[in-house]
């Protein structure tokens, strides 16, 4: 199979990349009607599969689960998840032939084999849905021309998709229709109805394309979301220990700090996060993050270039073919870092202290979010897509680090994200070596404000604030966050 994106002429590549339109809520006034009475079969019953299915059924749609024969016979977790919630479960052969819509919610890596098994069974004129376009765009999977291919991608973990639905809301969602596979023109009505069924229409929906989703999703997860959070966490921890900060304290500050800091990001964007610092600390964080942007820009660009050219997916698929040799090796190495092995100390750190004593992470987050956003936009991706794949998702990933450190983060994210994260981390650490030599405990481990009188230069502060607030990620962020009216605080430690 050939990389689909690379088969397109440049104008079509650009056309699909820049596909991103924030949808007005009245576009969803038809509710779930387009799918009402249709047979919907979900393949896979993990966290996304189960929770999306529960929502769709609660919206009045007809949902069953197709599982592999072995999963049913051996009563695996996917079978238990589906049957414990009283869903109809059957094999591919039993359920797929009568399905009007098949929703593929298996992990990326299984897509090719799942589609190869499912496609021949699908009836003429049925529809197929993905929640991530890797299989279509990077692996170049060809779907029968009578089949409609759509994508509905909630931008949150499965458990959140369910929780928000039952609260009466939803999570931000990206929807798309594959231009090569929309023979009857029912792609958009189906995608919209599916989105309503999961509650996504209440939290902001972005009309995207398979190409835009894949190229921006890969970029976000490799750089700011996972890669930079991993690099920043490990470097911060090592620096504190090197400078004599108690390792238990350092471990706790790093494990929970990134979550507390990005919680501010979620509500008020980069400037909201920076506003949590005192004026002198804000200026310091601004200066450091400017330097970090200069150092790391070339690396962000390399990642985007490799994603666009298909180099990244090619390398990763070679590793798939090689039994995940690199992935498993790197995963093991991450498990062995000092940060991972040092338990969080039994010390109380209050919310503001996470900002005051961990200024370095604030700088990392600002640099990473802005760089990822800028690089994506330069590569032809629209600001709305770039926002979701950088700023919006950062707090969600940070949440996994707070749970059980980096190992947990890498366990929860997809294998694709994990692979890209390690690539970034390995390249980023040497790049930052000289920078880290200058770092002292005033910006990581101790309160930056200590011993300072808090005064700053008026003009300088005004300029810094202006630069922060006028960054394009802030402009688009204000608009998109407004749509997510139901955004609630996850929690504080």
């Amino acid at each position: 199979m050939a990389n689909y994106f690379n088969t397109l002429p440049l104008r079509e590549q650009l056309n699909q990349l820049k596909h991103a339109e924030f949808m007005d809520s009245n576009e969803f006034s038809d509710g779930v009607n387009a799918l009402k009475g249709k047979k919907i079969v979900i393949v896979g019953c993990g966290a996304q599969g189960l929770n999306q299915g529960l929502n769709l059924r609660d919206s009045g749609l007809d949902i069953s689960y197709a599982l592999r024969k072995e999963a049913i016979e051996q009563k695996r977790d996917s079978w238990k998840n589906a049957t414990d919630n009283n869903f109809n479960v059957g094999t591919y052969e039993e359920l797929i032939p009568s399905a009007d819509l098949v929703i593929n919610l298996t992990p990326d890596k299984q897509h090719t084999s799942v589609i190869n098994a499912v496609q021949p069974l699908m009836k003429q004129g049925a529809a197929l849905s993905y929640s991530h376009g890797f299989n279509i765009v990077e692996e170049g999977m060809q779907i029968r021309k009578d089949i409609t291919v759509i994508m509905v991608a909630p931008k949150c973990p499965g458990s959140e998709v369910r929780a928000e639905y039952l609260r009466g809301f939803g999570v931000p969602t990206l929807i798309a229709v594959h231009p090569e596979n929309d023979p009857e023109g029912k792609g958009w009505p189906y995608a919209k109805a599916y989105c309503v069924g999961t509650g996504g229409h209440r939290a902001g929906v972005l009309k995207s394309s398979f190409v835009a989703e894949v190229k921006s999703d890969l970029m976000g997860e490799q750089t700011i979301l996972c890669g930079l959070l991993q690099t920043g966490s490990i470097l911060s921890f090592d620096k504190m220990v090197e400078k004599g900060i108690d390792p238990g304290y350092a471990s706790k500050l790093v494990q929970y700090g990134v979550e507390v800091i990005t919680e501010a990001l979620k509500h008020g964007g980069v400037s909201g996060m920076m506003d949590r610092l005192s004026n002198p600390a804000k200026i310091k964080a601004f200066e450091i993050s400017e330097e970090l942007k200069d150092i790391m820009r070339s690396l962000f660009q390399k990642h985007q270039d490799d994603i666009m050219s298909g180099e990244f997916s090619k390398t990763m698929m070679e590793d798939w073919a090689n039994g995940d040799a690199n992935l498993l090796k790197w995963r093991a190495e991450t498990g062995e870092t000092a940060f991972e092995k040092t338990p969080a100390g039994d010390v109380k750190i209050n919310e503001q202290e996470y900002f005051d004593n961990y200024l370095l992470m604030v700088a990392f987050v600002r640099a990473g979010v802005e760089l990822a956003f800028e690089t994506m936009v330069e590569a032809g991706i629209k600001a709305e897509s770039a926002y979701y794949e950088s700023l919006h998702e950062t707090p969600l990933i940070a949440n996994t680090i707070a749970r059980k450190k980096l190992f947990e983060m890498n366990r929860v994210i997809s294998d694709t994200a994990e692979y890209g994260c390690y690539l970034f981390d390995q390249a980023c650490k040497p790049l930052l070596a000289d920078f880290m030599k200058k770092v002292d405990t005033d910006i990581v481990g101790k309160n930056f404000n200590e011993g300072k009188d808090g005064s700053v230069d008026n003009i300088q502060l005004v300029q810094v604030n202006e630069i922060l607030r006028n960054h394009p990620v802030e402009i688009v962020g204000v608009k998109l966050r407004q749509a997510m009216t139901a955004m609630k605080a996850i929690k504080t430690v």
Partner: protein
Amino acid sequence: MHNNPIVHIAHLNLHYAGQAVLSDFNWHIYPGENWVIGGKSGTGKTSLAKAIVGEEKTTGKITFHFNEHNPCPPRSYYVSNWYQFTNLEGDRNFYYQQRYNKFQKNDTLTVYAELIHFGQKNDLQYSDVEPILYALGFENCRDTQLIELSSGEHKKLQLVQALWLNPQLLIIDEPFTGLDKRSRTNLLSIFDEVAHRGTTLILITNAPQLPTCINRFAEIENGQLNVVEQATDFSKDAVREKKPLPYFLQKEPESTSQTMVELKNVSVRYGDKVVLKNINWRVKAGEKWLLQGPNGSGKSTLLSLLNGDHPQAYSSNIWLFGTKRGSGESIWDIKEKVGIISPEMHWYFDRNATVWHTVASGFYDSIGWFIDVKHEEKKRIEQLLDFFDLLPHKDQLLHTLPLGKQRLALLARTIIKNPPLLILDEPCQGLDVAQTTHFNSVVDELCTHGNTLIYVGHYESQLPSCIEHQLILENGEVVEEITI
């Protein structure tokens, strides 16, 4: 002459949200004394309890003189009136229907694991907890996950832990809340027993029945301790001025079906565990039902089937408002016709919601926030807030109000859309007698306009008078159906 007091509180001052709660507060608690703190709501009882165990910031002095010869551990312990637990990953971002959705990965600890953890932390013997589990009828909950416990069962778990710890000073905020009758009776004698063994008790409650060991009574008045002779001397909240219901609630709710609820041979099981067994029940339009049964008998599960919250409703013979479940209706179609309030919903309610937002969310059946509220709806919200005397609190966060006021706000949320079916699952949990009477009189008045009512309450003396039918559950089965 007295021994040293076990607790000596001198010149205590405590502020909450800029208001003085305790001012120059003094109190001696001597060994052999067991106190009940009662009286009006919102006087600072909970704040005082928290201050004693160091959970509130205060000025002044609190000194403990524990007895080294007492076999009970020399420490104090506070059981709050609200339960708290986290999932395995340490956060508590739950939603109230979560206990009905099944996912293979455990979200929370089991009761047994939680007890083992508690025992290890406090150096306790597991064999000592067994009798307490039996006394409170909790022995069958060992393998239940914390998320699956009902509010009454959570209360029991808190009590089990406190009684197992057996501290010299035990402070319990609303010990009887949510407990069924048998557990309440057993708890009374357990309290007498622990008091006899050397624990000093402080119970914060206005419950009508108290353990016999209670020998001191006090309330808080103007931030200071006011000792009284007996519980009947506690001052009571002023009788509320009776106001007419807002106009929009004085008319019959819109309803198209003669039968609100019909269940035919409905069972719910999780693996081998049967939670509901062959339930047959019909609720006709306008009927007023009381649903009763001990903690864990399946009441909440039964109600969850009626509100679209339980996944097993799809494969059962359940008709709601004349439509069979699973015939293409959405849960929002159902919720639109149901006004529900339950302790679980209260517990998991959005902590960012103000009182006004809470009530407004009733129009959309959402938990907290809401979409756009129209002019007519705004008017209704104002009228209802006024009816419940909540107007002065409308911009406050719901969870910062005294419990009684929170409940009223949630009741307002429940009735704001004048739903044909009201499901009130222990709506008065945590309210005192006066508040409960007021609450129930509102329910009575509401129901004169044709609403159908399903009400759950553990205190037989504290029910709305409009009740005319009764369904009693035990171990998941209907044991009695009575027409009063």
